[in-house]
């Protein structure tokens, strides 16, 4: 298992007092993504636990693009990964954000 941590500075609005959002299932080639509001002084922190080792650079690239797409702050994103491809990772992240943003409105 490999544990990776990424932090991004964002300006998105801080939301509090809401339940965690979880999408996806941990299985071979798949992952679960959990979103939680946490006071991180404006940061968005992403923790990845993955069974596929040695792909830090690819995670960095995928998450850079993700962070740039949504501009998030005070959000803790936790990922349990069973070796998903970047395509699946992007899809789950977008689904999680969609569910998260839907619950805000």
């Amino acid at each position: 298992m490999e544990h990776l941590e990424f932090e991004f500075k964002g300006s998105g609005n801080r939301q509090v007092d809401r339940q965690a959002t979880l999408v996806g299932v941990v299985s071979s080639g798949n992952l679960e993504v959990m979103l939680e509001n946490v006071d991180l002084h404006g940061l968005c922190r992403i923790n990845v636990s993955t069974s596929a080792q040695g792909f830090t650079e690819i995670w960095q690239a995928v998450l850079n693009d993700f962070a740039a797409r949504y501009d998030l702050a005070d959000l803790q994103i936790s990922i349990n990964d069973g070796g998903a491809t970047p395509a699946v990772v992007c899809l789950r992240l977008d689904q999680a954000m969609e569910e998260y943003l839907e619950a805000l409105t």
Partner: protein
Amino acid sequence: MATRKWHTQAENRRARLLRAAEVCEGKIVPCERMTALIEKVLEPGDRVCLEGNNQKQADFLARCLAQVDPQRVYDLHMVQSVIALPSHIELFERGIANKVDFSYSGPMGTRMAQLVADDKIKIGAIHTYLELFGRYFIDLPPKVSLIVAHSADSQGNLYTGPNTEDTPTIVEATAFKSGIVIAQVNQIVEDLPRVDIPADWVDFVTEAPTPHLLEPLFTRDPAQISEIQILMAMMVIKGIYAEYDVNRLNHGVGFNTAAIELLLPTYADSLGLKGKICRNWMLNPHPTLIPAIEAGFVESVYSPGSELGMEDYVRARPDVFFNGSDGSQRTNRAFSHAAGHYACDLFIGSSLQMDLQGNSSTVTLDRITGFGGAPNLGADARGRRHASPAWLKAGREAQSGLTTTPRGRKLVVQIMETYREHMQPAFVERLDAWEMMEKTGMELPPIMVYGDDISHVVTEEGIANLLLCRTDEERNEAIRGVAGYTPLGLGRSHSVVENLRDRGIIRRPEDLGVDRRMATRDLLAARSVKELVHWSGGLYQPPKRFRNW
């Protein structure tokens, strides 16, 4: 001037038949005499065609051939579409044969590589089907062909049933060049439903102890189609089929193309495309095409071979398929691939690796897999002279300013997720095919589809239209622009890619108006084999390995 003899081949044939008469009388041979007969008929160094495609197999005759005495029969030169059975490999391990010209060796790819490494096999060349068939009539006519049919009558007429496949081609090349044709059949009957091969082209027939093998190679379980594949299929339908009015086409086999087939009655229908796209097909009867046929998308399907379990469904849809007077399907791989090459406007398929030039290959380092039919279908037909809207539009796009002669272009589409499972990148700097070439001493890298034949590359990131690229650099950047987070994709220049996007060379789902959120399995017309059975009105009878009820 010495008189030249003009009948040596016929005399040789007579000599072989005389030797055969030592072990059997007449045309119908008991199966237990078959190995002895083959031994009598063959001579060392013969070119032998062993019928077998990735569907039906002359498996009994293959076993008989593998049992001959290698002291008497050796150094055979095998010519065959597919190397698929353990007995095929045994021929080389036992020294019965030492050379092969073939098309495909999917399931035996690893053992083939081992035979090459052990110097037990010499590969003449790896071909596409139509190319190998062509050589049967030019420089590789078989001396003896071991073929397979469904049934025979006492005269030796053959009925091939829905899976005619390669049989007529092989028999034609052998019987009309003084060769000898030996057939295995499942049963010998009084009356055949129809005659697919006339008796006077066939020398010997045997009733095999077990029915011949038949692989359901073209069955894809919709349960395994992923959301990513659905997203890509939506892009193909909206961004290619609709835009080019693609009506005459061929699909490769795989989950990517199965997804397209299953989106026709749902997504394509919602775009108002019924009757406007996907009407005439060159395709095995894919079970995943059933919903599109039932929904009225498909007008006709001509097939290289049938598909196990689809027989009754095909029989009940004679307006769509090519069926004989007996009602069952007639297939023909040679005609199908000629049709696929010249009469189809589009081919779409997947492969395992693509390089920056767009060359693609299914070769990996330890497996010699071959090509099958894809290179013939996935190639621009330079000899084509008839026009169609899709062909003309592609031709216009491909034309750079200098040429003024109008000419069309085939659409050759490669569809693949940027990473395969276990994080294997689909886009690579250098194809494994090059290393395979170096290791085995081939003259060419085994490339499935050449980059200059490819018109579009589709990945989860979007579509790259290579027709519109004007320089090699542009093509490279267009491929990088859809290569995702692979090393090739990460090497892209964002500004160049954005420029290509402005020019419509790269199109993202949002550029195409494809809503990613719709890309769920609910969009599939059938999510399981059971739903395919329901669509077929109970006519489709899936092989037991595809059932989960």
